[in-house]
């Protein structure tokens, strides 16, 4: 429910509303776009990044919060650990229980490999579960993998790695078929034809969906199948460091039982990192759409073992994250809201940008209004945001339009006392996706032998910008490829003596480069929210 103070401000929105119906705010010129991006898009905020002082990507920019974790000391420092005491000895170790990890485990198991999947939280606790929109695949007659290829490259500003894009688009129909055969309930017409739609940047309608629970439907099906197929799963058990063998190849990981707080050695012939993204690092203090477990653990572990990062300086912010009510802070407000005509307004009820600018430009314009021009609306918890005038949709499309077109949004806000048919939504850009990650080849291999990476943990597929619907696709394409290749590869692997020398080397490198770690230890594993800061801001 809005506070009396906010309700007072909403009156200004109501005052200007009649004048705004049917009147489009002018679009920005290319120069204006460049300028607002350069000055306000978080990717262009220099203080948001710093060059790494250590490791394979030394000298390259990474977000400050990520650099803090990459340049931190190991959790294993001072821990007595005997690497000869092996608790788990398997062919393929999959770390991470989201869509990529589940797909990898299933494929490896199918090859006859002995597979262990460990995951920090519950099996299925991942961004996969929260993906609503859909999954791309060129499986309609007037579409094709080459057409999909061009869309992906253009979306990524032609920076994507061609081999990875080729794998992505050519495997896509196979992935959908695989899911269909497992009984995933895609939206279909009576004869089985897939119901498909456009996404931003697609030239064909190739977005497949399962209501607006697409990711959840895929994740729960994969999880169900993995258990049926006898994949061994350990929940609430994270990996904290990779173990290499004396030849420098991946040979397992040190696991950490979150409940007993014990460290355990898992030896494996091949290791697959599928540990997701980094939204919970809250780059530049942004709220996030991401899962609680998205803390960049896989990036930290891989980098420390010598795996190369790619595209770490490019992050996707979604312009319309909820800024109020506080209970849904940072959660996604679907792009369809502005697609249907809702416009952005400042504290005076004035429009300040065209409502259908691209995601990056819209985000930058909102930030400029709040931070640069100080014309945002401050909430009782100290957040700032701008109005997204949803009632305008009812004026444009007629009464009842919101209930018909945006039922999920209506429900989400009404749970906390805001009726978006009558009151505007308060929004602010939210941290959504890491475009980069650990660099892989088309089999999901990193530059460390026997180390594979899949899902948001991996980088290179999307270049500097990912299209909607290509993330659910990529986790499955490269999860499957990594699982398959890692299982095959494991047949010829003999793991040599295990070592953690790379951790000592990492500590030495920190010291030699004069990095002040200020007591930082990583991977983070769990974010910590005490909300004291929120309270302090609010009572100022």
């Amino acid at each position, binding site marked *: 429910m809005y506070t009396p103070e906010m309700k007072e401000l909403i009156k200004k929105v109501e005052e200007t509303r009649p004048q705004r119906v049917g009147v489009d705010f002018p679009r920005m010129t290319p120069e204006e776009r460049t300028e607002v991006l350069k000055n306000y898009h978080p990717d262009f905020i220099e203080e948001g990044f710093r060059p790494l002082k250590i490791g394979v990507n030394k000298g390259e920019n990474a977000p400050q919060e990520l650099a803090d974790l990459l340049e931190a000391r190991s959790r294993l420092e001072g821990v007595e650990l005997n690497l000869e005491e092996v608790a788990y000895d398997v062919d393929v170790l999959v770390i991470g229980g989201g869509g990529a990890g589940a797909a990898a485990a299933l494929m490896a198991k199918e090859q006859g490999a002995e597979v262990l999947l460990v995951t920090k939280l519950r099996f299925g*606790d991942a961004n996969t579960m929260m993906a609503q929109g859909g999954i791309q695949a060129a499986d309609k007659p007037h579409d094709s993998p080459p057409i999909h290829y061009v869309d992906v490259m253009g979306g990524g500003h032609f920076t994507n790695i061609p081999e990875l894009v080729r794998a992505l688009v050519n495997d896509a129909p196979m992935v959908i078929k695989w899911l269909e055969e*497992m009984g995933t309930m895609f939206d279909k017409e009576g004869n089985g034809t897939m119901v498909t739609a456009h996404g931003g940047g697609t030239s064909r309608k190739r977005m497949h969906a399962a209501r607006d629970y697409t990711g959840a439907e895929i994740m729960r099906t994969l999880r169900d199948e993995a258990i049926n197929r006898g994949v061994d799963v350990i929940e609430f058990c994270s990996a904290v460091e990779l173990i290499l063998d004396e030849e420098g190849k991946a040979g397992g990981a040190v696991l950490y039982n979150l409940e007993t707080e014990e460290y355990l050695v898992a030896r494996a012939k091949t290791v697959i990192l599928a540990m997701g993204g980094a939204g919970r690092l809250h780059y530049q203090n942004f709220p996030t759409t991401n899962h609680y477990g998205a803390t960049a653990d896989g990036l930290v572990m891989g980098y420390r073992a010598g795996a190369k990062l790619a595209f770490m300086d490019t992050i996707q912010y979604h312009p319309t994250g909820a800024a109020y009510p506080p209970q849904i802070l940072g959660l996604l407000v679907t792009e369809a809201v502005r697609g249907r005509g809702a416009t952005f307004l400042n504290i005076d009820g004035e429009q300040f940008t065209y409502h259908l600018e691209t995601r990056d430009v819209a985000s930058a314009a909102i930030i400029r209004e709040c931070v640069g021009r100080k014309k945002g609306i401050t909430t009782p918890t100290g957040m700032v945001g701008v109005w997204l005038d949803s009632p305008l949709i009812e004026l444009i499309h007629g009464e009842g339009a919101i209930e018909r077109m945006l039922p999920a949004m209506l429900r989400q806000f009404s749970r906390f006392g805001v009726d978006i048919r009558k009151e505007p939504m308060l929004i602010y850009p939210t941290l959504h996706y890491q475009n980069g990650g650990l660099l892989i080849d088309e089999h999901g291999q990193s530059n460390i032998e026997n180390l594979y990476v899949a899902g948001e943990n991996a980088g290179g597929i999307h270049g500097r910008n990912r299209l909607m619907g290509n993330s659910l696709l990529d986790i499955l394409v490269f999860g499957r490829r990594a699982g398959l290749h890692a299982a095959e590869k494991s047949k010829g692997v003999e793991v040599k003596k295990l070592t953690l020398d790379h951790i000592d080397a990492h500590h030495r490198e920190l010291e030699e480069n004069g990095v002040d770690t200020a007591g930082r230890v990583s991977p983070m594993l769990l974010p910590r929210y005490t909300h004291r800061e929120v309270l302090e801001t609010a009572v100022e």
Partner: protein
Amino acid sequence: MAQVEMVDIYLMGKKYSVPESLTIMDAMEFAGYQLKRGCGCRAGFCGACGTVYRIAGDYELYVGLACQTKVEHNMYLAQIPFFPAVKAEYDVDELTPSASSLATYYPEIYRCIGCNSCTNVCPQDLNVMQYVAYAQRGDLERCASESFDCIMCGLCASRCPAHIVQYHVGILARRLYGKHVLPPAPHLQERVEEIKAKKYDADLDELMKKATDELKELYNSREIEK
């Protein structure tokens, strides 16, 4: 700035004063907890944070998702982030889409006494008892549809006097329906065969070799499907 209203809540019996605007999950963190269990997507999709609570002076036992429920004054709460339930292991390929498949793995569905506790506690407002009734009858289509928005939080199973694990029944019904009843997409099958026959390999190889300018031109002159 407005004064923050505080309320008293009791976490596992201990009293904490927290801002009244917080969700149960935020309130626990505010109180100093770092959550391991009982916290997942924080957006109402994953079912990790089932919580039971009482309000002082009210005999009723309430439930909700910690990330989607606001705290109230004098709320006594505990999380049930893990409610034990055994998932049957089966091969969906081998099963028929019928009541007997469901009955084989989850025979307790016939012990339902119609108390409606499952429906009453569902945070997604699903008609849980109804989809169990569809399962009993082997009406997979309705069972799948009615249970589709289930987030598998387990609150239904926690309250069931007949020991039914409703959410496991739901997913088995949906997989049987998706696999054996929904017709496979004909265009998908065709495309998969084409790809296996390497129909697009040459074109893709060609595209991979193209210089950025050539690709840009292709991209900018794309025909967009209406």
